């Protein structure tokens, strides 16, 4: 038992860094599901897209900040693509997201030129901001924690502006919002773009931190993100806008800590996705299994 705790304790700092970066993906999943009511799976492909764009640009001599912003822009475009497939071709948003993810696989390989591209020897965003970041997990925790808080604050502000109210309006009532002058196409595209831009940022940050981009790095991100959102909402609730926005971040930190604990307890890492999948399934299905909910759309 002491062994388990000490293994877990040693994993905590790196887990916090990991959880904080992945909390951006959880945020990016919450926005379509909760704000727009247009469930979207694009993150799974947009996360490696952001990584690929950032690594390819930095490796070709671009400034790390430019490369990171380009990753956000690429994510935004990918999210808009999903929205337009959904709205213009009348494809269900989940299928539209799967199509985007599938197509992005090829795009990401094209951008990287190979399945895995390293980034050693180039100045990354972290080197540029402060040389201490790469050398200290504690500084990384502060850095990514601040970033998550800034993102929460920005989203909180954005969703209370007239544009943000339009975004929430199409999510709350897609029949009403156009009758009040809100363009369904423009706002859905903008909202999914915003969410995917955050996923792209997460990919760029992760790639520069670990020093490489891999086309497979998005696999399973979506279900982890869903699990994070579910856990987060169980902790913070959804009674206010701020709680709804903070939930994915809180949830991601708790989820990755729980994962590390499970690994410290001896869970085979390759079994983690199965356990996470079962957890999400059970959480979504529980109200139906015990008969408390007859109809509804789960998450």
């Amino acid at each position, binding site marked *: 038992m002491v062994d388990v705790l000490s293994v877990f304790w040693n994993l905590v700092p790196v887990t916090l860094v990991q959880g904080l970066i992945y909390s951006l993906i959880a945020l990016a999943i919450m926005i379509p599901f909760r704000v727009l009511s247009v469930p979207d799976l694009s993150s799974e492909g947009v996360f490696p897209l952001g990584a690929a764009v950032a690594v390819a640009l930095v490796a070709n001599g671009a400034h790390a900040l430019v490369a990171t912003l380009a990753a956000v822009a690429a994510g935004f475009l990918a999210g808009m693509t999903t929205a337009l497939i959904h709205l213009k071709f009348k494809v269900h948003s989940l299928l539209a997201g799967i199509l985007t993810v599938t197509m992005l696989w090829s795009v990401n390989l094209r951008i990287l030129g190979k399945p895995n591209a390293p980034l050693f020897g180039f100045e990354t965003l972290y080197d540029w901001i402060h040389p201490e970041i790469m050398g200290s997990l504690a500084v990384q925790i502060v850095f990514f924690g601040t970033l998550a808080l800034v993102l929460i604050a920005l989203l909180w502000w954005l969703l209370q502006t007239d544009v943000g109210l339009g975004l929430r309006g199409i999510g*709350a009532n897609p029949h009403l919002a156009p009758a009040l*002058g809100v*363009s369904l196409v423009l706002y859905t595209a903008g909202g999914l773009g915003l969410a995917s831009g955050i996923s792209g940022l997460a990919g760029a940050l992760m790639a520069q931190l670990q020093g490489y981009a891999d086309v497979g790095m998005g696999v399973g991100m979506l279900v982890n993100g869903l699990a994070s959102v579910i856990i987060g909402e169980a902790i913070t609730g959804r009674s206010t806008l701020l709680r709804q926005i903070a939930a994915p971040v809180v949830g991601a930190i708790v989820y990755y800590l729980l994962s590390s604990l499970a690994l410290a307890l001896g869970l085979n890492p390759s079994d983690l996705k199965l356990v996470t999948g079962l957890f999400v399934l059970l959480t979504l299905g529980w109200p139906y299994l015990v008969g408390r909910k007859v109809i509804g759309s789960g998450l």
Partner: protein
Amino acid sequence: MSSSETGAPLLRLDRLRVTFHAGTPNQRVALDDLSLSMAEGDFVVVIGSNGAGKSTMLNVISGALLPDSGRVELKGKDITNLAVHKRAAYIGRVFQDPMLGTAPALSIEENLALAGRRGLRRGFHLALNSTNRKRFADILAPFGLGLDTRMRVLAGKLSGGQRQVLALLMASLRKPQLLLLDEHTAALDPATAELVMQATRRIVEEDRLSALMITHNMQQAIQYGNRLIAMNAGRIKLELDAQAKQKLTVEDLIQRFGDASDRQLLQA
């Protein structure tokens, strides 16, 4: 759009034609070369049995449905193919289903703020501030629903009648050139329906709105509006002006234009 186009009526429907399920055994002509003209300040009440084409007409005016042929003109401007969110600048709409007219996950004041930008550019200013919060509460207060002190309550927590009054205020918060009321009291109990109709009259009169209202309620058809239109099979079957409408009684209406379903409704 300016109102300077002289001579153009507020609303002109010109030979609107809508066919559902065209080319299938279920083919049905919903609007059969329907034409209608409405002057500024008119409050037109539309009656007719189910399937007469009333809601189809409203959907074509609001842009939710595009006609197979024909034209919709608002103050002389052709809006036949204008997107819903664009013509929303000129048209306010209240739906039959109280669930549809408000955004349930937004608070009362957020609903009003959302509606307050109808037809305006939306920017990155905070949607609510102390000024418009007070204004929204002041607008709600006269309706006696007690909502003005509960502005942060989610619209989803309101009763059907409260929601319809809120929806009415949202549709008229920025004065529309035309207010569309699609059986907006049909889903309410009689007492609540009466309350919502009083709110409707108050809003239409105070803001001098032009309105087009569909109803199944013959009493309402007599009591409200300055023109009455009876529709049948996608056409206007009968039209009464203000003078003729004033002499009308419920019995007249039922005998002349009513059908079985309307009679049942009235007796219920």
